[in-house]
Structure formats: C-alpha cells, structure tokens
C-alpha cells in the first residue's frame, strides 16, 4: 500500500464544558491522487474532522489529543502563521452553499485574482484568473469575472470556489457537501469537473457527503462516521457490499428500504442517546447486536482485512450482516 498523503491518528476534539468529545479517537488516511469518502448523518463529526485538519475549529473547541500528519509534519503542532501557509497551498477546501463562502461585495474576478496573487501567481494575476475560469468550464470567463456572487447561479458559484482552490494548486482538496442544494444536473456537472481536475492535477480529494450515491460513484475508499468517530474504513466495494459494522449495515439496508414506496406503518428509527462516557461503542444505544461489554469496554478501529478496518468487538460473529442486507434485497425483490 502506498504511503498516505494525509493521516489523522487518534484525533480527539471537545468543546469546553461539554462532557462528551465531539470527535473521539478519529483515525483516517487519505491516499495521494485518490477520492476518499467520508459519510455519516448530521452531527456525526464529518465537518468537524475537516475543520480540525484545516486548523479552523470553531471557538471553544479544543484538540485533546491525536495527530494530523501531512508530508511528515503534524499540522496540530504548527504555529498559526505556518498553518496559514498550509491552508490553500497544501490543503484546499470547497464548501456547501458556495455563495455564502464568497465575498458578496467583490466581483468574482477580483476574488480569484486575490487568491492567485496570494499564492504567488506570476506576472499577470488577472490573466491567470481568466485562464483558471476557463479551466473550470465557465462559458464566458470575461463576463463572469465582472459579476458579483449574487448574479451567479449556485453551480457557477461553486465553479468559482473551485477556481480559487485551483489557484493555490493544493495536494489535497477537502470538499464538504460540495453539491448539496444544487440541481441534480448541475451536481453531476460539478462532480465531473472535480473528476477531470483531479486526473489533471493528481490531487487527492476527501469528499464529505451524506449522499451514498455520490460516494459510490466517485470514491475509492470510504470512512463511515458515527457519533464522532470512524466506525468503518474500507474500499468502496467492501463498504457497500460487505459491511462489517452494524451501523454501516444499517445504512446499506436503509438504501434498500428507501428504494420502495413509503408506508405509514413502517417503524420509526430508534433514536437513543449515545452514552456519555468515552469508553464503549457510540452506536451501542441503537445497535440490535449490542451486549453489556459493548458499553463498558474500550472499542477502537482495528484492521480486520487487507484494507478493511472496523470498530466493533463483535464484527467476526456478525460476519453475516452483509448476507442479511442481501437477503433483505432479495426478499423485497420477490415481494414486488
């Protein structure tokens, strides 16, 4: 296996005064020149992980332990000044709701030119900006560069953000829900664009999304987060077809279940609070296979297959989970 570009090791982050850390022992690697997916429901810590990597944690959040290694240096040890140099040039980021990530009072062209200049963009930053706009397939770059963000569609704003990210030529792009809220046709175009830029520049992409469809189509490896920790990390085929963690198996089952008409008598999902302690499995409260030991023992992400890690103490006994998913599919197919 190639050396990872980014390695997050045992990252633990907590808000001041909160008994339970928002991130608990997060382990994750991103291979160079590949798409890695990060999935989980809202509040599972996906965005918090991204913000920790970028050193942009919100006020009141503190790193309690762990490392974020990229190119042999631990980002958590860097001074704010050095970290500012890492952002953009080593790690780029694009966000959900691209319009709110842009300055509403500056033309798009000025904002891109600024980014180009900041990253030492040659003799004529204005021209570089236009070239970059052309590279993200904006039809009329001259016209677009004179526009203000509110004059552009959401899809165009996301292209502008991608342009600014490209100006810095990062090695890793973190894309946090980059297409949420965009039309499906525009979503497909943005993802296509990211794919071609990835191939062209060889950058790695960490794609954060709750849409398993996007993850399945683009990512090579997927990390599944639940309750502030990574519960499973494996190649995409493994995660979708042979999940080992009960939560992942549940996710895959809901995929099958949402693919049929809504029925009013379907049971509501059990939403139980996760235990407050730092030991025990965060999913134990909702897990149909939980035992007492699942709550009292320390549970960590372990390598259980060639490239497959899972944080479940019963994963070996529950090897039939995948079969359950399949059986469910077949049963439903037989019914319909």
């Amino acid at each position, binding site marked *: 296996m190639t050396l990872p570009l980014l390695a997050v090791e045992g990252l633990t982050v907590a808000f001041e005064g909160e008994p339970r850390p928002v991130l608990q022992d997060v382990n994750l690697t991103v291979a160079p020149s590949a798409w890695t997916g990060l999935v989980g429901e809202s509040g599972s810590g996906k965005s918090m992980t991204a913000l920790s990597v970028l050193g942009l944690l919100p006020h009141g959040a503190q790193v309690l332990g762990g490392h974020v290694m990229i190119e042999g240096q631990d980002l958590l040890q860097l001074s704010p000044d050095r970290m500012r140099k890492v952002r953009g040039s080593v790690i780029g980021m694009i966000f959900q709701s691209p319009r709110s990530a842009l300055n509403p009072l500056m033309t798009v062209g000025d904002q891109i030119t600024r980014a180009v200049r900041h990253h030492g963009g040659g003799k004529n930053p204005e021209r570089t900006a236009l070239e970059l706009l052309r590279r993200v397939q904006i039809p009329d770059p001259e016209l677009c560069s004179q526009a203000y963000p509110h004059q552009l569609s959401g899809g165009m704003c996301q292209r502008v953000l991608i342009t600014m990210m490209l100006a810095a030529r990062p090695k890793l792009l973190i894309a946090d829900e980059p297409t949420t809220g965009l039309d*499906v046709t525009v979503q*497909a175009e943005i993802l296509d664009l990211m794919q071609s830029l990835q191939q062209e520049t060889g950058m790695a992409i960490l794609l954060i999304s709750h849409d398993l*469809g996007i993850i*399945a189509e683009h990512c090579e490896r997927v990390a599944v987060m639940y309750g502030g920790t990574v519960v499973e990390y494996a190649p995409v085929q493994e995660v979708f077809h042979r999940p080992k963690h009960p939560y992942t198996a549940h996710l895959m089952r809901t995929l099958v279940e*949402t693919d049929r008409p809504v029925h*009013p008598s379907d049971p509501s*999902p059990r939403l139980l609070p996760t235990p407050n302690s730092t030991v025990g499995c965060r999913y134990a409260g909702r897990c149909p296979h939980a035992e007492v030991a699942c709550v009292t023992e320390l549970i960590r992400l372990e390598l259980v297959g060639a490239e497959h890690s899972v944080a479940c103490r019963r994963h070996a006994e529950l090897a039939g989970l995948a079969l359950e998913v399949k059986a469910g599919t077949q049963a439903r197919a037989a019914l319909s």
Partner: protein
Amino acid sequence: MTKPLLEVVDLKCEFHERGRTVHALNGVSLSIDPGEIVGLVGESGCGKSTLARCIVRLLTPTSGRLIFAGQDYTVWPQMRLRGLRKDMQIVFQDPLTALNPSWTARQLIMEPLHLHHVSDPESRLAKVLDEVELPASILSRRPSQLSGGQRQRVAIARAIGIRPRFVVLDEPTASIDMSLRTSLLRLLRKLQQEDGLTYLIISHDLSTVRHICDRLFVMYLGKVVEEGRMHSIFTSPTHVYTRVLLSSIPVPNPSVRRERVPIQGEPPSPTVIPSGCPFRPRCHLAELECEQPQPLYEVGPEHFAACRLARSVTLAHADAPA
C-alpha cells in the same frame, strides 16, 4: 370519474424588473384529484415556487385560471381568500425563515387555529402534536431552540391544524437530514390515508418525490414538459429533459455504472423564452421541428410528454394492433 380538487389552466405569471420581463410561468396546466399526492420537479428557476405561490394566491397570476373545488378563485380579493385558505395551506421551503423567531411553538401552532375559529383549540393542538409526532415539551421552545426536523414538523402542524383539504409543500425535505426524510414522508402518507389530505409536493430532488407521490409533473422553464404516473415516468421517461434528470441521480451502488443522458450549456434565463420546446437549446436531440410548439402527446395511460420524440412513441402505439 372524480372531479378534480384543483385545476390550474394555462397559468402565466410574469415579473417586471429593471426593464426586463421575467416569464416565470408560461402556460402551466395541471389538475389534481382529491386524495392524490402529486409531485412537481424541475431545476431551480423553472418556476416551481412561483407556481406554488400562485396556487395559494400569495401571487396573482398574469393570466390563466385557478379553480378549487369548482370555484374560480383566480382574482378573488384578499378577504375572500381567507375563507379559501381554511381549505388550502402551504408549507414553505425553509422553516427557520418561515416561522416567527420570537414566537414559541405553541403560539406558532395556535395562530391559525385562532384565525380560523377552530372550536376547542387546545384539544386540536394536542391532536396535531400527536399527529406530527412532537412531544408537548417543545411547545415552550422558539424556532431557534428546535432541531431542523422539529421545525419542519411545527411548520406542518401549522398547516394541517385547521384540517385543510389541500396542502402545498415547497421543498419539504430540503432542510432536513436523510434519516428524518423518511419519517417525514411517512407522516405525510399517514395524514393522507387518515384524513384524505391532498398534496402537491414541490422538489428539485427526485428521490424525495419518487416514493411518496402517485403522479409527477416535470417542469422546465415555466412549462410542464411531462406528466404521468410516477412508475410510468420512472420506467419510461420520454421527454429528453426528464431523461436527463433521471440519469443524473447518482446510484448508490459502486458496481453499477450509469449511462448519463448529456445536457448542453447553462441553465436558461427566464427573460428569453425560446420558441417551441423550451429545452431545445440544451437538447442533444433537438431538430428543426422542435422550434414549433410541442403539445403534450399521450405516450401511455395517463402519461404525456411535450417532445417530438413522444410523438413517434404515440405513432408506434397507434400502429400496434390492438
């Protein structure tokens, strides 16, 4: 045959801004039967929300007719509309901006009950809370203290508390999590089955409407380009735009590679409406005849599409021996 609950006939709506005319709706016609759940999809800017606002008469259309339960209310004055709104409600896209931030959930849900003089509002409040599966403990909270799913339920409780016959939902799942989406859709289905509610669900997300709606309308640039039973549209989409839309949905299976129908250019501007098929400038199969207006051709039982390709489907049907 049942009489439709709502009929929209050749609705047009134009806005004038800075010397330009925005043609938001260009002759939309649709009818909804009582007890139906109907979906309306299309990309942003296609006029979905304008249509929703015209239907509940927050906007007055430029031309066309709106008929609810046999009554033409297209130009009714505000006072008269209040009576109609007892039967027709709307749930807006973003509950955080649609709910008064300084009111408690109790005040928010009670307001329509008082306005429409519901007898014994307290017991109705308790019943509605139960229906939308909200605990009474949230009644003292304000919108900012509620989760996204709870806010959406408060917004729905406001709409259904007065027992309307028809509810328009504008992007009901846009602001909530995937796991809550299923429970919200299940709630809508339950209310439809128990109270015979009729819905129009507007969304840009096909997977939301797919499993809850009985029928689907596909809109493009202020026009309905395809309509039909949900199953019929998903199994045999006919208009090129519908095919583009359906083929753009990512498939959550890494072993499946989907074939995408291509789309050209940027989303159109509603200030300049092309002649004929509105999708023509972006269609990879467009031909000269697409510049002529395309009627809705019948391509299957209750399935219509306004596309020249649909006409050949119709001909094929006619040629086939009965």
